């Protein structure tokens, strides 16, 4: 493969995108009709890209494995979407959003991409409102904003706790319009099985119809991967059950570099695992940390009593509680960034202070907030501020108004009333900053193959800020890819339809069929989930919130051994030509078993700590993460060489021209 060329346009940062748009090649409307584009995935990035490409005139074929494009997991995003609109007049600007995103990413993202993201962010809001997305409004009828994730301005647009849902349905409606016009052909319940390269260019995919098992060939002049992140490599994550790495991994195996696989975001406020049967984890919005205080007991005997049910959280005296975030980070307290809060919880639980049966939970306590708000309300209403019951009642009302839906969700799952008893929370895998390496045009290292949204690596560095994922997905899909792809496709106006009868399609289809047959005929003894859970455990224990050389090396060999065992002993019931969930899952887990190893290898290679990646060897004397800018200001882009362990590292140096690289501190 060619040397990494990020194709960053020349000129000053603020003019790069405008200049680039003016200079790249375009395809005329008449010629767009002659060009086919395949989009895999229908989350924010995939749906918005499909809609826009179709609107521009391309023939789009869109694939999703769910029963409808609307099910994509972008729908589960709660909090909001950032945009530098500065409607609140609090000093926000494109530059400030750009700066916050780079800093939040711990200086491991590509400057030019992030600046462009900040630049187009305002268009997203205009676009979504025009589409009928019902954002929250104030009484004057204008859009409301809130503050999010420790930044200093209010730039987050939201629709209650369902922002992702509303944005996705907006993009889905734009898609529906094009499906109705016949410009998008939608393939529901179809899984992409492989990418087909003809003369070194991406020219189509092999897909499997999940309803009847039919293997199909689809050709196109370009292929866009928008299949999301790979958090499910940990088995337990806040991702949907079907979320998978397969599309990204297949293109990686065909030549696309995979960048920074070890950059994973672990979200601190999730509902803890309740037992062996757990299938997924549920996130609660980070906004809870605005009012909740996080603690564990100071004494181990109290922990024991709590676990055995002799004591309740509310029985622990104030002086016997360890508010460890407030203790360690007096300046930011409970509002430290996600990665810091998660590691601190793990540190306490590892020391034996976890407060549930599994020993992996800490308290998030609203009692102080309830009493503070209650007193405030009592004062405002001229009532007795010393009446404990009254204050509690008034305070709970305030808390209910702010977080009611989250409290209700918690109660449904845990069956405990969080108004009376502190919530239990624990960090969980949430988002993957790493992904397929792309250049400024969002093209992977395979010509004609693009990656957008969470599937690519470019904008969040080593840690993503809250409310930025939605922004990136829509920016890529609505406003970046549809224009940059024209630059490549302008060479294809005379190509004509791509035949699916070529030997390349033939060979790819055969490989896919052979793998599937292999699974069905294996007659092993363990289910697919058995392996997925085992992989998840290795990943969580060795490549989770903190990593060290020894653990990572064990992880690499363990995963390799597990993978071999998987191919020997996996049991996939049913047949090839039917609706067979286990077969689909087997293919996905097979890819996770390879990605997991590369993940560990990448984590091993990067001996610094940065963002979500914490190497125990690289910390300050107080246990804080320590970056190594001298040796690691680069993107690790891995080239596939037959086995994950043989992957070849390419480094894309990161240059910061407009930003001074600093150490993050939250003390």
């Amino acid at each position, binding site marked *: 493969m060619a040397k990494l060329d990020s194709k960053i346009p020349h000129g000053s940062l603020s003019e790069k995108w405008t200049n680039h748009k003016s200079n790249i090649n375009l395809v005329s409307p008449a010629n767009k009709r002659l060009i086919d584009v395949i989009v895999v995935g229908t989350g924010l990035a995939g749906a*918005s890209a499909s*809609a*826009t490409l179709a*609107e521009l005139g391309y023939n789009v074929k869109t694939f999703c494995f*769910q*029963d*409808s*494009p*609307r*099910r994509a*997991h972008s729908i*589960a995003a709660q909090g909001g979407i950032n945009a530098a609109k500065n*409607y609140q007049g609090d000093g926000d600007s494109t530059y400030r959003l750009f700066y916050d995103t780079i800093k939040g990413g711990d200086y491991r993202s590509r400057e030019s991409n992030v600046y462009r993201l900040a630049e187009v962010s305002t*268009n997203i*809001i*205009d*676009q*979504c*409102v*025009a*589409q*009928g997305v*019902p*954002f*929250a*409004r*104030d009484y*004057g*009828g204008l*859009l409301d904003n809130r503050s999010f994730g420790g930044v200093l301005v209010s730039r987050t647009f939201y*629709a*209650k706790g*369902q922002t992702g*849902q*509303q944005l996705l349905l907006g993009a889905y*409606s*734009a898609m*529906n*319009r094009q499906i*109705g016009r016949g410009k998008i052909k*939608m393939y*529901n319940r179809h899984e992409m099985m492989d990418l087909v390269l003809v003369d070194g260019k991406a020219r189509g995919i092999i897909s499997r119809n999940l*309803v009847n098992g039919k293997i199909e060939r689809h050709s196109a002049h370009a292929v866009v991967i928008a299949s999301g992140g790979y958090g499910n490599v940990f088995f337990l994550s806040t991702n*949907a*059950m*079907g979320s998978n790495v397969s599309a990204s991994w297949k293109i990686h195996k065909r030549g696309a570099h995979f960048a920074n696989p070890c950059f994973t975001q672990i979200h601190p406020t999730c509902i803890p695992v309740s037992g062996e*049967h*757990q299938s997924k984890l*549920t996130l609660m919005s980070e906004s809870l940390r605005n009012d909740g205080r996080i603690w564990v007991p100071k004494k181990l005997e109290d922990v024991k009593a709590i676990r055995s049910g002799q004591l309740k959280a509310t029985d622990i005296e104030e002086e016997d509680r360890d508010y460890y975030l407030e203790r360690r980070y007096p300046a930011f307290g409970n509002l430290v960034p996600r990665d810091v809060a998660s590691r601190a919880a793990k540190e306490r639980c590892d020391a034996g202070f976890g407060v549930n049966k599994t020993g992996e939970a800490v308290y998030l306590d609203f009692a102080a907030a309830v009493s503070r708000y209650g007193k405030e309300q009592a004062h405002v209403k001229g009532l007795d501020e010393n009446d404990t019951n009254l204050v509690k009642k008034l305070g709970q009302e305030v808390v209910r108004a702010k977080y009611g839906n989250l409290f209700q*969700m918690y109660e*449904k*799952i845990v*069956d405990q009333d969080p108004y009376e008893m502190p919530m239990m929370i624990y960090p969980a895998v949430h988002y993957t900053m790493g992904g397929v390496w792309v250049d400024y045009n969002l093209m992977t290292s395979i010509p004609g193959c693009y990656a957008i949204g969470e599937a690519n690596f470019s904008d969040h560095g080593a840690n993503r800020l809250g409310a930025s994922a939605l922004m990136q997905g829509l920016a890529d899909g609505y*406003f970046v890819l549809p224009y940059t792809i024209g630059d490549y496709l302008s060479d294809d106006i005379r190509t004509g339809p791509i035949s699916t009868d070529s030997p390349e399609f033939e060979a790819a289809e055969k490989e896919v069929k052979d793998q599937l047959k292999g699974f069905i005929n294996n007659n092993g003894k363990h*289910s697919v989930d058995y392996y997925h859970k085992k992989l998840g455990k290795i990943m969580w224990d060795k490549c989770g919130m903190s990593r060290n050389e020894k653990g990572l090396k064990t992880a690499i060999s363990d995963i390799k051994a597990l993978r071999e065992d998987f191919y020997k002993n996996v*049991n996939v*019931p049913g047949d090839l030509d*039917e*609706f067979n*969930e286990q077969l689909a899952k087997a293919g996905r887990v097979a890819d996770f078993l390879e990605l997991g190893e590369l993940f560990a290898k990448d984590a091993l290679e990067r001996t610094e700590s940065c963002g979500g990646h914490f190497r125990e060897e690289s910390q300050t004397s107080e246990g804080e993460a320590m970056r190594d800018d001298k040796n690691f200001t680069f993107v690790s882009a891995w080239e596939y060489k037959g086995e994950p362990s043989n992957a070849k590292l390419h480094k894309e140096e990161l240059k910061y021209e407009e930003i001074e690289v600093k150490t993050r501190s939250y003390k």
Partner: protein
Amino acid sequence: MNLKLKIWRQANAEAKGEIVTYNISDVSPDMSFLEMMDMHNEQLIETGEDPVAFDHDCREGICGMCSMFINGEAHGPDRLVTTCQLHMRKFKDGDTITIEPFRADAFPVIKDLAVDRSAFDRIQQAGGFVSVNTSGNTQDANAIPIDKHDADKAFDAATCIGCGACVASCKNASAMLFVSAKVSQYSLLPQGKVEATDRVLNMVNQMDEEGFGNCTNTGACEVECPKGISLENIARMNREYMSASLKG
């Protein structure tokens, strides 16, 4: 807990289905309903039987993919939840649980408990959108103020997750709640009003073509809707439809 499961098994769309009875033991009350189904499937795989096919994805009540009819109710006995949010603590040791797919001729069974709800997609494609290009060169988002009450109502309608519980619960298999939620969302917003007439006519026509039944105002849909979408939306769509028909 020990439970008896009576599950609808059907090999594919053409096959004739039947109820098959299974026993399952050691179910924890903390499990979600789907985790209980996972456990049951693991056991089936171990004994060489075909696992039960069912749709599911996000498992946090927002994607709308899970779709079981449990003991005679869509998403089971709990209110304002999807099947994935239903927990086994809602059941008692020794209970018999009947699990069927969402049934409607417009939702043909694919296999076991998985049904094809693409009729919903086609209704949306008939008009569930605002015809605005995604160029980003629209007017500023704050150019048209929107009454907060209207915006809130539009949001409430827009929270529909398209799971199909309304159709499944309705004795007539009517899709009115689903369609009206989308029609309402747009008719309440100035951006959607422009093409309101065509939208409601086209979407209702498509709904009828898909073979859903008629609304007889029993209100079952509203009760079973995991997102609590209100019947007000159906009334609003009826209004919209009448005025659109009169306009021609």
